[in-house]
């Protein structure tokens, strides 16, 4: 397995509206690795994913982040995307009036550069949609507008499959999916697991990790990563809960 670091986070502190949420996160993700990030509601997982993608409301007050050795924090959100990062949103945003097909064509074209042959793109899209059991009619619907929870998550994975990111941040992509959808989505994620890519998978459930086996599991608590381990850690969490696994912080989340 390659050991080239794609993402290095050092002592990251982040504040939202003046309130410190992340209080010193350290994490290194190498090419070829899948990291699972778990932790109670409100522990700071989404804050980390938004910060990594450069949401303007999330202010880095201390620390550093490197992406392929480059200072990530100086890049705008779109630059991060074009550099190969992707965030599958926990709560995907609706864009009324913009059809899924127009949206996908525009974003894919922007990322791949040059001309996007209409026919080939159609074919690729149809194939991926079939894999994810997304009906054709979604192409003419407006992006995430009136989508069910699971439909939104599937669209996130469809975009990921089209954009083929080097670093995918998946924020609770498994939440809200039915059992069949979970399997197809997991397959979609596994296709992206190659030696030169990495995935940071935020999840609450072992279910997902049964399909996508992580190399590392981290537990976040109060804005820090308080425990790391291998895939066994997730199973322990599932069996015993956060109180036993991370007793030093028991009950302090909310």
């Amino acid at each position, binding site marked *: 397995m390659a050991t080239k670091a794609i993402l290095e986070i050092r002592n990251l502190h982040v504040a939202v509206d003046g309130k410190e949420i992340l209080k010193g996160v350290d994490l290194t993700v190498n090419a070829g690795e899948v990291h699972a990030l778990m932790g109670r509601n409100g522990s700071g997982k989404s804050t980390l994913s938004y910060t990594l993608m450069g949401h303007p409301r999330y202010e880095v007050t201390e620390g550093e982040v490197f992406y392929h050795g480059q200072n990530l924090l100086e890049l705008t959100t779109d630059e991060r995307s074009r550099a190969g990062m992707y965030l599958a949103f926990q709560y995907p945003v609706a864009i*009324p009036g913009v059809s899924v097909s127009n949206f996908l064509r525009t974003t894919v074209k922007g990322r791949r550069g040059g001309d996007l042959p209409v026919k080939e793109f159609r074919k690729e899209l149809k194939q991926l949609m079939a894999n994810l059991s997304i009906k054709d009619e979604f192409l003419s619907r407006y992006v995430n507008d009136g989508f069910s929870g699971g439909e939104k998550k599937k669209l996130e994975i469809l975009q990921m499959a089209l954009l083929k990111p080097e670093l995918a941040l998946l924020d609770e992509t498994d939440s809200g999916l039915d059992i069949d959808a979970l399997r197809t989505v997991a397959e979609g994620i596994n296709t992206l697991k190659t030696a030169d890519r990495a995935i940071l998978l935020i999840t609450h459930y072992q279910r997902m990790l049964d399909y996508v086996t992580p190399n590392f599991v981290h537990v976040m608590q109060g804005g820090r990563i308080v425990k790391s381990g291998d895939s066994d850690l997730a199973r322990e969490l599932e069996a015993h809960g956060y109180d036993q696994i991370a007793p030093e912080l028991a009950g302090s989340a909310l």
Partner: protein
Amino acid sequence: MVAELSSSNDFLRAAKADYKYGFHMEEADYTFKSAKGLTRDIVTRISKMKNEPEWMLKTRLRALDIFLKKPMPRWGNSKMLDDIDFENIHYFVRATDIQGRDWDEVPENIKKTFDRLGIPEAERKFLAGVTAQYESEVVYHSIREDLVKQGVIFLDMDTALREHEDVVRKYFGTIIPSADNKFAALNTAVWSGGSFVLVPKGVKVEIPLQAYFRINTENMGQFERTLIIAEEGSYVHYIEGCTAPTYSSDSLHSAVVELIAQPGSHIRYTTIQNWSNNVYNLVTKRAVAYENAKVEWVDGNLGSKLTMKYPSIYLMGKGAHGEVLSIAFAGAGQHQDAGAKMVHFAPDTSSIIVSKSISKDGGRTTYRGLIKAYPGATNVKSSVRCDALLMDENSRSDTYPTMEIDEKFATIEHEATVSKVGEDQLFYLMSRGLTKEEATTMIVNGFFEPFTKELPLEYAVELNRLIAMNMEGSVG
């Protein structure tokens, strides 16, 4: 509009430029250009130069008196209105004596202008007839043979007055009398050009007719006059576009448009107004719809300094239906004061108003609307929806809806929203690699989509491109 139609829907990669229609041509060999200012003499001269019948001259002179007497409106944007210098305007400019039936008959400079605006190309591709007005008069005119054979009349208004005087006399000014408002009076006094359309009973003109209005001269006043009559059971889609050069001093565009939809007919009137930012656009548009007729105003307002325009539909016959679908875009120094009026005179009439506006860089949009139902107009249905999008803190949007319902059984819905371009929407799109500008444009295009989807494809593409151009530099 229809300039340089892009073949793909690739609006985000659209050419980035300022208002690209701001160029002007040398006024080579102009036939006539009236001195600035408005007098009885000028009005008389216009009428004489056009060899008009006496009744038209009288109509003009009466209208001039009304114009001079009527005070300036005290609503809309009084400050901007008061800035209009009526003495600093050329009221009649004849660029050429010839009206071409072929583009080769059109003087070189003028032909070049319309080439740059993409009119001949659009004509070849998807139009059933075209009139192109340059300054005060129509310089090019065409209509497809098959439509002529079916009895469709599509002419410029001056020619129509000569060739179909009876019809013109019967309807001219019946929908919008001179005394309706100050600018309708002004138009009636100095009108020139515009379109006359008559669609005979049962004839459906499936492909749009288009008129294009171009101002070239500085301090120009353009006052075209349009009259469309759809006879029983007929259909027509009429599209108008307009642009002007960018000058440092103001021009005035003040049209009057009258539509008559006879029983069971259907008129769709689409406007893409894209004047340069030194043009006052003060237009009166009104339609009457008889039994089971349908009238739609699809009204896009992108340019101009001040637009005041409230397309109206008088629903005169049982079961008549009216729709106004409008968008407005106001940037720095612009005020788009637009809206709609639906007046229900008959039972079972229905109306829909959808208004979408965007203000940016200190621009102002206003929705001003009226829904009125007279006694006897039972079972009226009407819905009004106004959405305003503000791009920044300095921009402004106001809504003035008026409802006067004098009948008990009416279903009236009204909904209005004002929103800002959301940080989360921008972040979502930018996380997919779109720049802030591209993301904003996509959100804006989405916002206007209910309008855009009503346009023929080529126009929708062009509109998205214009919006992308207007968004240029709007985000930091």
